[in-house]
């Protein structure tokens, strides 16, 4: 009896994340008698957990049987499966921010049962910032995982009032950026291209609007996001440092509703409605910036354009109880035009079609077909210098992912995927006959990436559980064309030799890899645990960028003969502890990471439109290690978190810095973020964030010389990153005022007033060196601040 009970408890622990928590809590309470005696083979309760008001699937919601100490967690599609002995039980369904629902069911056979949860009355005074279940951080076997829901993102004071996914992520431990206005984010000493950013399972190749000031994700369309920094499950691969899994809203399946906002920079509107109530729904969400509309009022600027927009659409439809289809698409663009002089535009497009199939109460399948593309165009529209330069990366991908609730102690995930890539590094065409430009097409590359994986979450009693898996990947560069070897001195531009012709039947490069993954949890007590994570990650495509912040023009390059796949091994160890009945959660994690085949560039490398790009690439090793500390207050009028990361990220590249280790440009010794939200009343809340981080590493000249009247900086001995830009710190504040509640009205408005960079610090984005404009023999160091002052803003948000 007792052993059976333990097994069940373990099963719950396995079934993912939160429930195990609940399990362990009840376990020590001596011998809680089950409500019913098991009388036959186990039976399974399965179905979907949904929001009662909107029908949205609740990712990570839990179902729990207190008397058994058993529970299960809903997956990314809201599906759960809980296997118990036959009997009569009280099931409790919970989700953060929602009222727990209880019901008593007689389970004699497998049962399909979907449940709708309602939000807690007025969602004001209690502001739960993060997470899916109160003690998920301690109980889950996952390590290095942070979840943010859309509400948390909107509570943080935002730059110019634009709630932003990537900026919110940068407040989490282990995450940093090379500067405001820089695209992307860096996780545990990795580059921005080492994050696998998935939007409804489609990879996003450039996460930024306006270079990096805002991210491409419309916060009104985002339902849930999860950042995994370590112990990455075998289902995911292809990037070294992290997984950012963004799930878009499914759309309201109960009634027509919408959200929107009017801000200084952009306006947003999203509309969602049922297709057939309870069976299908859709959501359309768009936003556009409108600074350029003001430009039209200025005569000098009337021909200039500068704006961004994005649009996402998603629909889902249930084909009976067992099958569900999801179709989602995203289209975003940044557009710049300066009269006849210049135009530039870039953006991502993704499309995903998914089919969920429930084979039986214990086997769940998701099949995905997707396409994703990032492209840009730039040039001079007309005239003798007219040209258009285009580049893109496009991929088509198919995959099948199974989730098998094998036994109460074991959940297995397995699946296969394939990705077909096309890389167009750059094509230039003249825009008219009199143009001085000729046509130039850099060699297109094609590649395939295959993967198969299997993993198991397994529990060995309430104190110990593991998730272990293996991912097998195979990358083949199947380009047609001529490829070279490169010879010469490392650190100098190399010379192409030994041209070889390739075709798809003779791959340019063929790389198989095995990627083991492991996470383990050992419970020290009801409210604390130790966790270990290990992962090997392999990355086959590389963003080629030698600027401090990546530019929209940077291109992705597949692995070739010379460019080897990047590999990383990471180990992390964490201590997780919650206090005062989960009112506070805290964690301390250390990590160490080794990276192979890291790419760097010779001095003065030209990474764009370069037919012999590989002549300017250098390869070497990277290493990163650090400690992350995190404390979060979940309840009360004051909520928020404090995160601090102490870390180091270095690389050793033959041909740079005399072949010695040097700090990565995104190395930051200290990164601190404090986030606080204080609910003054049901209508008014105040929030603030404070950031502090060590300045980025850069190179400063130690000498100069004059060449034909131009003063040239020089660093003796070619040292790299010998200096730190001054530390960065910033305080932001915001106040959110909700309109008076009118229960009879559907329209609800709120105002957000915010001040970014409250004490107007001129944070240095970078330190640069130049000749004085008026006195060319004089040299000077200049500081570039993206924001020279404080930035107030007001945004009006609404829902209906």
């Amino acid at each position, binding site marked *: 009896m007792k052993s059976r009970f333990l097994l069940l408890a373990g099963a719950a622990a396995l079934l993912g994340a939160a429930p195990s928590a609940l399990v362990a809590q009840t376990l020590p309470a001596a011998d809680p008698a089950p409500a019913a005696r098991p009388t036959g083979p186990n039976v399974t309760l399965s179905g979907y957990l949904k929001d009662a008001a909107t029908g949205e699937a609740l990712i990570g919601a839990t179902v729990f049987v207190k008397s058994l100490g058993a529970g299960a967690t809903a997956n990314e599609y809201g599906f759960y499966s809980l296997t118990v002995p036959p009997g009569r039980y009280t099931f409790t369904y919970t989700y953060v921010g929602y009222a727990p629902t209880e019901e008593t069911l007689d389970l004699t056979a497998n049962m399909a049962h979907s449940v709708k949860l309602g939000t807690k009355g007025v969602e004001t005074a209690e502001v739960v910032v993060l997470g899916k279940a109160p003690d998920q951080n301690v109980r889950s076997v996952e390590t290095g995982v942070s979840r943010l829901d859309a509400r948390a993102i909107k509570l943080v004071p935002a730059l110019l009032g634009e709630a932003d996914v990537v900026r919110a992520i940068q407040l989490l431990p282990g995450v940093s950026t090379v500067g405001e206005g820089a695209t992307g984010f860096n996780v545990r000493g990795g580059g921005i291209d080492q994050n696998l950013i998935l939007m409804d399972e489609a990879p996003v190749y450039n996460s930024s609007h306006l270079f990096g000031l805002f991210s491409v994700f419309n916060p009104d369309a985002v339902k849930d996001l999860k950042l995994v920094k370590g112990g990455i499950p075998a289902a995911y691969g292809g990037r070294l440092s992290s997984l950012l899994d963004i799930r878009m809203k499914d759309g309201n399946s109960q009634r027509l509703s919408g959200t929107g906002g009017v801000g200084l920079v952009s306006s947003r509107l999203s509309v969602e409605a049922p297709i057939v109530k309870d069976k299908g729904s859709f959501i359309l969400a768009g936003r556009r910036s409108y600074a350029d509309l003001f430009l039209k009022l200025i005569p000098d600027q009337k021909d200039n354009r500068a704006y961004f927009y994005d649009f996402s659409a998603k629909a889902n439809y249930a084909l009976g109880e067992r099958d569900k289809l999801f179709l989602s698409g995203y289209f975003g663009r940044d557009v710049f035009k300066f009269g006849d002089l210049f135009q530039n535009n870039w953006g991502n497009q993704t499309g995903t079609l998914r089919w969920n199939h429930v084979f039986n109460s214990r086997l769940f399948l998701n099949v995905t077909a997707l396409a994703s593309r990032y492209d840009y165009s730039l040039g001079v529209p007309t005239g*003798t210098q007219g040209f258009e330069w285009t580049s893109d990366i496009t991929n088509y991908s198919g995959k099948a992912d199974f989730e098998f609730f094998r036994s109460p102690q074991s959940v297995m995930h397995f699946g296969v995927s394939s990705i077909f890539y096309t890389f167009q590094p750059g094509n230039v065409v003249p825009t008219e006959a009199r143009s001085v430009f000729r046509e130039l097409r850099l060699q297109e590359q094609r590649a395939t990436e295959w993967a198969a994986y299997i993993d198991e979450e397994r529990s060995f009693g309430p104190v110990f559980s593991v998730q272990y898996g293996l991912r097998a990947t195979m990358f083949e560069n199947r380009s047609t064309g001529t490829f070279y070897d490169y010879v010469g001195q490392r650190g100098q531009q190399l010379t192409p030799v030994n041209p070889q012709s390739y075709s798809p039947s003779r791959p340019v490069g063929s790389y198989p890899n095995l990627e083991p993954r492991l996470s383990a949890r050992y419970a020290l007590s009801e409210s604390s645990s130790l966790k270990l994570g290990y992962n090997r990650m392999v990355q086959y495509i590389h963003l080629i960028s030698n600027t401090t912040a990546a530019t929209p023009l940077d291109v992705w390059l597949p692995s070739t003969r010379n460019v080897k796949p990047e590999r990383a091994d990471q180990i992390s160890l964490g201590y997780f502890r919650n206090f005062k009945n989960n009112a506070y959660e805290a964690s301390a994690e250390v990590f160490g990471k080794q990276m192979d085949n890291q790419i760097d560039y010779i001095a003065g490398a030209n990474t764009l439109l370069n037919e012999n790009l590989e002549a300017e690439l250098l390869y070497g090793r990277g290493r990163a290690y650090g400690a992350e500390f995190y404390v979060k207050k979940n309840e009360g009028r004051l909520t928020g978190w404090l995160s601090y990361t102490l870390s180091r990220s270095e690389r050793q590249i033959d041909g740079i810095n*005399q072949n010695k280790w040097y700090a990565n440009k995104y190395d930051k010794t200290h990164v601190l973020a404090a986030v606080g939200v204080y609910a003054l009343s049901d209508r008014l809340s105040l929030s603030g964030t404070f950031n502090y981080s060590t300045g980025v590493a850069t190179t400063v000249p130690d000498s*100069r010389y004059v060449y034909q009247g131009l003063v040239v*900086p020089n660093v003796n001995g070619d040292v790299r990153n010998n200096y730190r830009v001054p530390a960065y710190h910033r305080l932001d504040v915001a106040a959110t005022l909700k309109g008076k509640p009118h229960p009879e009205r559907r329209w609800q408005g709120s105002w957000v007033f915010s001040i970014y960079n409250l004490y107007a610090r001129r944070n240095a984005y970078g330190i640069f060196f130049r000749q004085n404009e008026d006195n060319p*023999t004089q040299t000077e160091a200049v500081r570039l601040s993206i924001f020279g002052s404080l930035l107030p803003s007001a945004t009006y948000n609404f829902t209906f």
Partner: protein
Amino acid sequence: MNRFFLLLTAGLAACGLSSCIDVVPLDVPKAGPLLSVDGQLTDQGKPATVTLALTQPYFNDTPPPPVTGATLFLEDDLGRRDTLREQTPGFYRGQGTVLGRIGGRYTLTIVTAGQTYRAETEIRRTPEVDSISLEFRNDPPSYDEGYYATYNGPELPGVGDYYRFKVYKNGVLFNKPEELIVSSDELVDGKYIGGLIVNEDPLVSGDKIKVEMLSVPRDYYFFLNELNRQINNVGLFATSPANVRTNVRSTQGGATQTAVGYFAGYTVRADSVVVP
């Protein structure tokens, strides 16, 4: 490229997200001096000239200390040899026994302070300048109203030609860091280069614009290009500062940098126009 990013930055400013640049005091390390070379040999029938100096700490604004008393000689691929004599402190000029010629290859040897350095260069083929002409434009914000000088001339068929354009207004070279114009023929190979505007601000009556087109060796093109990036390296998309290449190498070997600058061979073709 830089111009594009400058324009993009201007775009950001237009969005009201005004960024700012200010001068800051900074302590930078001070390195020991290296030999700095600024030399050229053209196909214009004049002997080679070389200026030798020492590098100095980055914030030292005094004139660079000249390197005096050095021994310099120039040899070509026809076995001729010319000795460069010091004319003023640090400034050396050949006697004319070696002159620049298209297709010629040259080696400059410098002996100073017990060290010997060598620099190799060549003079490559060149197209001609057809004309410098005037064009009236009035389409702000791209071009304010007025006359602009344009370059007209062919580009030779076959990729692998490199150019520097030097623009003089009323005899004064446009020589601000952002006015260094270097280009390769990769995107314009064999095309007629016509109507290429060479000045930023509109000209007034009486202004004279002279354009020198220099056909430069490939390695020197990379030198100028790298130099261009280093002296215009401010902004959101700046690169980590890095040393510009040099063709001046110590004969004693060793991988560490021992000299900076360049001794370059190139052709010069020029034409000019006066605004009526």
